[in-house]
């Protein structure tokens, strides 16, 4: 009897680089309108299998493409992202487009304004194709918590794309967008980028405005780009970064030319390797690939040295207390009164709140609201929430000490390559541990980039996380470029 072998469905297709697209557009080889149409064809073809897009904004996209084509026809200078097809994670609002946050409770909601990151992309010429699937309220590490069904990993459709920005990572990996926006609270850009084999950026806390982002945990949430290569990710960050009077936490620091920063050689940079990120629980194949990446950095002239971040093991407990406490407060606004879903049969106001929330929220969101409310409740606040905030300071200060000695830190982005759908859904704690290498930077507010760094024998992508100090994205991009160039 022949054994049954299952063919791996693979939808991986690398998008053109921004430079290639620009050359095509300036040289008249392609029109922005045709490019947008081609992307909508690709989406129509593969979305039924991958479930990456939740809604399409064709009218707006085609109007923008027409504006770009009119500029090009006149020979006017084109803005930096002219005609570039981009997808937007469905936790960022776009005027008139559905905003679900992957939740039933926002079904039917069409916000009346644009998020700042969205309007900045459009002002730079980008063509916004539509909204991308994600875990409900960005809570999850596999995209299986979306009320609209899981995204499938384009590399192997039996596997998860990671989360919570699973749609944003898969869109770029499957060439359903040239680039995308995601958000990262505990690893939600970096881990899916790693699982899908694309580049993802965690900007410094405050570097990118969160105006128009449906909040999960406000002291941790960040907006950042996904792209097919490091230089393009740097260009995108340059477009969306900068101070915004509408977000009091946005940084007034000047925004450098990140793409130019990424072009600088890495020779002489000091790169730290923390032993705590290579301990028990790290998959052997992931480790082997990351070690090759580190060897590549040495060959490129970096000084590689061991560093120590001994509080790393306390990061997941700290993160889940801080993030759930903040979530319990942020998600109080979803009550069936002002937007989204309202439970139809409620005779009292209290009943309307409870029924709308009970019927509108999924299990993981309820679990986190309960945990956060518990950690903040009378008698437990000091033991849980305050304790976590104290440990958060220890974790952050530890990073600052290490960054006095090194320019960047490199680690695996995730302990394993993409896991199978359903593999961790029954065990919330096991799912939380998928973020073990990413939550530390989230708590400390520092920046980072994840860059593809080889693959397992089964062909699953491995990602290397490059971390740098506050506002040093340029350094993280430089190191990531060197890993990319080493072609692990």
């Amino acid at each position, binding site marked *: 009897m022949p054994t049954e072998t299952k063919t791996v469905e693979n939808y991986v297709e690398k998008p053109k680089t921004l430079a290639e697209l620009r050359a095509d557009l300036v040289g008249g080889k392609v029109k922005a309108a045709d490019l947008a149409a081609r992307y909508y064809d690709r989406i129509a073809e593969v979305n039924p299998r991958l479930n990456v897009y939740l809604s399409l904004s064709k009218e707006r996209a085609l109007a923008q493409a027409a504006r770009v084509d009119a500029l090009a026809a006149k020979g006017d200078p084109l803005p930096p992202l002219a005609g570039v097809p981009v997808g937007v994670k469905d936790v960022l609002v776009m005027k008139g487009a559905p905003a679900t946050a992957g939740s039933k409770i926002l079904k039917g909601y069409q916000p009346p304004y644009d998020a700042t990151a969205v309007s900045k992309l459009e002002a730079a010429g980008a063509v916004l194709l539509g909204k991308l699937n994600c875990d409900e309220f960005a809570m999850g590490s596999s995209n299986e918590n979306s009320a609209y069904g899981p995204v499938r990993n384009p590399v192997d459709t039996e596997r998860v794309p990671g989360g919570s920005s699973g749609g944003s990572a898969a869109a770029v990996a499957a060439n359903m967008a040239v680039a995308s926006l995601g958000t990262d609270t505990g690893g939600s850009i970096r881990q899916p980028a790693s699982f899908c084999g694309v580049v993802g950026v965690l900007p410094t806390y405050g570097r990118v405005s969160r105006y128009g982002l449906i909040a999960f945990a406000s002291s941790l949430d960040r907006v950042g780009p996904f792209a097919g290569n490091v230089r393009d990710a740097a260009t995108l960050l340059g477009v969306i970064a900068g101070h915004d009077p509408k977000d009091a936490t946005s940084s007034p620091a000047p925004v450098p030319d990140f793409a130019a920063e990424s072009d600088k050689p890495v020779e002489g940079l000091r790169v730290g390797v923390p032993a705590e990120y290579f301990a028990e629980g790290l998959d052997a194949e992931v480790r082997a690939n990351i070690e090759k990446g580190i060897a590549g950095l040495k060959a490129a002239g970096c000084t590689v040295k061991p560093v120590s971040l001994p509080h790393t093991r306390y990061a997941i407990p700290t993160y*889940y207390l801080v993030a759930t406490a903040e979530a319990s407060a942020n998600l109080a606004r979803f009550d069936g009164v002002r937007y989204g879903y309202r439970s139809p049969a409620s*005779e*009292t106001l209290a009943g309307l709140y409870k029924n709308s929330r009970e019927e509108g929220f999924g299990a993981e969101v*309820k679990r986190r609201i309960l945990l956060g409310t518990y950690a903040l409740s009378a008698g437990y606040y000091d033991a*849980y929430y305050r*304790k976590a*905030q104290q440990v958060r300071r220890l974790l952050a200060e530890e990073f600052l000490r290490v960054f006095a000695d090194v320019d960047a830190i490199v680690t695996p982005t995730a302990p394993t390559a993409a896991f199978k759908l359903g593999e961790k859904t029954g065990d919330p704690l096991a799912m939380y541990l998928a973020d073990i290498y990413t939550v530390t930077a989230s708590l400390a507010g520092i920046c980072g980039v994840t860059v593809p760094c080889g693959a397992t024998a089964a062909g699953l992508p491995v990602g290397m996380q490059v971390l740098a100090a506050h506002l040093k994205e340029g350094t993280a991009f430089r190191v990531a470029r060197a890993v990319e160039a080493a072609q692990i």
Partner: protein
Amino acid sequence: MTAKVTLQDVERVAELAHLELAPEEAPRMVGDLNAILDYVAELNELDTTGVEPLAQVSELESAERASVLRADVQLPSLDRGAVMAAAPETDQVFFKVPKVIER
């Protein structure tokens, strides 16, 4: 920090959070919360006496970031009609909800 969460605790917290848990949901949440709280109890190993809690990280970037307030001037808000258009029930001026006060 090793307190065991009971069904009554979950029901009390659900009440605080305006969540009405289904009968089969509550016991599952008791189990999940206990597993998670057992895990976070690891933080007890650390002596944090005298450590100032870190509520937000902007201060780590620069001292000026610790407090950012804009000038207290009135700026345009979202258009009321556009906001009301997204509400489940409205008379275009106010959000409508079930009656709160009996006359």
